[in-house]
C-alpha cells in the first residue's frame, strides 16, 4: 500500500499527526525486521523506536523519487546493526562447535518445512549468534551479495561466506531438532 505523499510532507514539517501515520504504516513490518536481528521482542522494540526517531529526523533527506519503504528498511537495518555493535554483540568470529559438514545429514525434508510456524523460525533466527544472524538476514532477506555485506560490516567476503554457511548449518541443526521433537 502506497503512502500518501502528503504524509511525507507532513513528516518533513515535523507535524506529529503525519509522523504518527507514517509510524503506523511501517511499524508492524519493521518490528518483524528488527526481531530478526535482535534476541527478543523487547530489544527489537528498542531498535524500532530508535529507528523511527532517526527516520523522522532524517526524512528531509529522503528523495521522494525512491522507495520510502526501502529507505525506511535501510535505516532500520543500520539501526539494528549499530545496536548489536554498541552492545558488543557483533563479533564475527568463528564458533568452533558448529561445523556445517558435520550436520549435513540432518537436513530437513522439504515436506517437513511446512510444519514450522513462523514464530518458531523467528526464534531460531533470534537464537543465532549475532554475527551469523546479521549476515544471514542481509543475504537471505535483504538480498545483499557477499561483497555488499562485506562492505556494510567491514569484513572480508570470505568472512561473510563463512558466517552464512555457519548460520545455515546452525539453522539446519535447529530444524532437525524441531523435527525430531
Amino acid at each position, binding site marked *: 500500500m502506497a503512502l500518501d505523499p502528503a504524509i511525507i510532507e507532513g513528516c518533513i514539517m515535523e507535524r506529529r499527526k503525519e509522523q504518527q501515520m507514517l509510524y503506523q504504516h511501517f511499524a508492524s513490518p519493521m518490528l518483524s525486521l528488527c*526481531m530478526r536481528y535482535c534476541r527478543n521482542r523487547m530489544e527489537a522494540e528498542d531498535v524500532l523506536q530508535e529507528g523511527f*526517531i532517526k527516520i523522522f529526523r532524517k526524512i528531509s533527506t529522503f528523495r521522494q523519487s525512491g522507495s520510502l519503504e526501502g529507505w525506511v528498511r535501510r535505516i532500520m537495518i543500520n539501526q539494528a546493526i549499530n545496536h548489536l*555493535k554498541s552492545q558488543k554483540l557483533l563479533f564475527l568470529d568463528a564458533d568452533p562447535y558448529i561445523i556445517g559438514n558435520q550436520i549435513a545429514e540432518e537436513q530437513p525434508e522439504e515436506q517437513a518445512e511446512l510444519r514450522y510456524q513462523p514464530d518458531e523460525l523467528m526464534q531460531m533466527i533470534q537464537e543465532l549468534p549475532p554475527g551469523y544472524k546479521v549476515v544471514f538476514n542481509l543475504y537471505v532477506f535483504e538480498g545483499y551479495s557477499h561483497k555488499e555485506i562485506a562492505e556494510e560490516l*567491514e569484513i572480508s567476503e570470505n568472512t561473510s561466506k563463512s558466517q552464512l554457511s555457519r548460520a545455515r548449518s546452525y539453522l539446519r541443526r535447529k530444524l532437525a531438532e524441531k523435527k525430531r521433537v
Partner: protein
Amino acid sequence: MSEEKLHQEDERLDELFRRSLGEMRSEPSAGVWKKVNRTLFRSELSRFHFGNLPKATWGIIPAAVIITGIALYFGLTDTTVTSGQAHKRTVEARHASPKQTVTGGPADQRTSGQVDHGKPIAGTTAPTHQDSISPYHQNTIPPSTPPYHHTTTPPSPNTTVTSGPADQRTVEARHASPKQTVTSGQADKRTSGQVDSGKLAAVTTVLTPQDTAPPYHHTTIPPSTDTTAPLPHGITRAHASSLDIGLNITPDMVFYQEGSGSFKYNYSFDLGARYNIGRFYIQSGVGLMYSQDIGNYAISYLSNDSVGFYYVVDQYTIDPGNPGVPLFETKQVTVYDSVQHLTDNSTKNTYYYIQLPLTAGFRIINKPLWRLSVEAGLFYTWLVSSDEPAPSYYISEGRVLEIERESPERNSQSLGLTGGISVEYQFARNFFLLVEPTMKYYVQAIQENSSRGDKQPFSIGLRAGIWYRMNFKNKTK
C-alpha cells in the same frame, strides 16, 4: 553430498525462512509510539537555541524588560507597601485665580479635585495658617491624623456620601447645580472633584476623622496610615537598604541543540549575596557546579576472523647433537583480516566548576510576606576538577588499533548569560525562602570539538534556597 545438491539445499533453506518471515508483521506495543513521541518532543525542545533568534530580538527583549519594569514600578507604586515611597497624594485646588496645588510631601501625597475659590463655599473651612505659610502651598503632613475642622457642614439634599472599601473620594460641588459627592474608603488615595464654591449654597457632609478626606483646598492632609499598618507578627517590611545572604541548590537541565537531542543534568550549590536598594538589588556569590557526561569512545580493532594463523621463526640454533641441523624456535601469529568497531558509552565523566554570578534584579511585587523579582546578568564558570575514566571494553580475540574519543573535551572557562524570576517567601523575621526558575545561556564555549549547538547549550533550572536578611536602616516593624 555434491556441491550442487548442497547449493540446492541452501536455497531451499533460505526460501523456507524468506517465505515464512519475509512478509511477517508484528504489532509493536503502544509504549513504542509514546517513547518516540516523547523523544521527538524533547528533540524539538532542545533545538530551540538563542543563537537562532533574529538579531533584532536581542534589542527587543531587553527593551521590553526595561519598559515592563518601569511600567510595573509606577503601576504598582500605590498598591504596594515599601518604605521611602508610600503614598502620593496631590491636591489641586483650582481657584478662579490663582491655581493652588497642595502636595502632601514625598511620603504622603493626595490628589484632590479642583476647587473654584472665586466664590466661597458655604460650610467649608477657610484655609488654615499652614496654607498661608507654604509658599507653594505644599505642606508637611503631620504624623497624626488631624481632625478636619470642617467636619460638619450644612445639610444639603444634593450631597451624596458613599463609603466603601475603595479609597477614592470625589467631591463635586457646583453652585449652579449644587451637588456634592463624597466617596470614602479605607485605603489611601483620594481624589476630589471640582467645586464651584461660588454657587454652592450649602453642603452638608458628616465625616469622621479617619474617613474624612480633606476636601479640595484643605491644606491639612493626614498622613497615610498604610505605612504604619501592623504587619503579621515577626515580619519585617522591605527596607531601603539591606543585605541578603543565602544558601541555594539548583538542578539544571542542559539542552544541547545537536547530538543526542536529549538533555543532561547539572547540579549547583551556591552561597549568594544580595544588596538591596529599594526595589533593586545586585546579586553575586560563589557556587560549585557538578556536571556529568557519558564518555563515548569508538574502538577500532583487528579481529580474528577464523582466517587462521601461521608460525614464524623466532630464532634458531644448531642442534649440538646433529651439527649442521638447525633447530627452529617458532611463534604463532594470528591472522587478523577485518577491522571491527566497538563503541563504549559505559563510562561517566564528571566535572566540577566554580561559578561566579553577577546579576541585577528588580522586585516587581514587594509584599510583606512575599516578593516577586526578575533578574538578569552574567556568570563565569571555571572548571576546577574533572574525572574522565578510560573506556571499558572487552575484545575476545583481536588487537586494538585506535581508541577515538567522541565525547567532546571541556573548556576550562566559560561565560554565560543568566536570568530568572525569583519568588521569596518571608517565613520569619529575617529569614525567607527563595524559589527561582532560572535560565542560562553559555555565550562562550564549554566544550571543544563539537558542533555549535553542543558548544553553547542553554539550561533551565530551579534554584531554591534559604536566605537571611540583614537590615541597614529604615527598619520598621
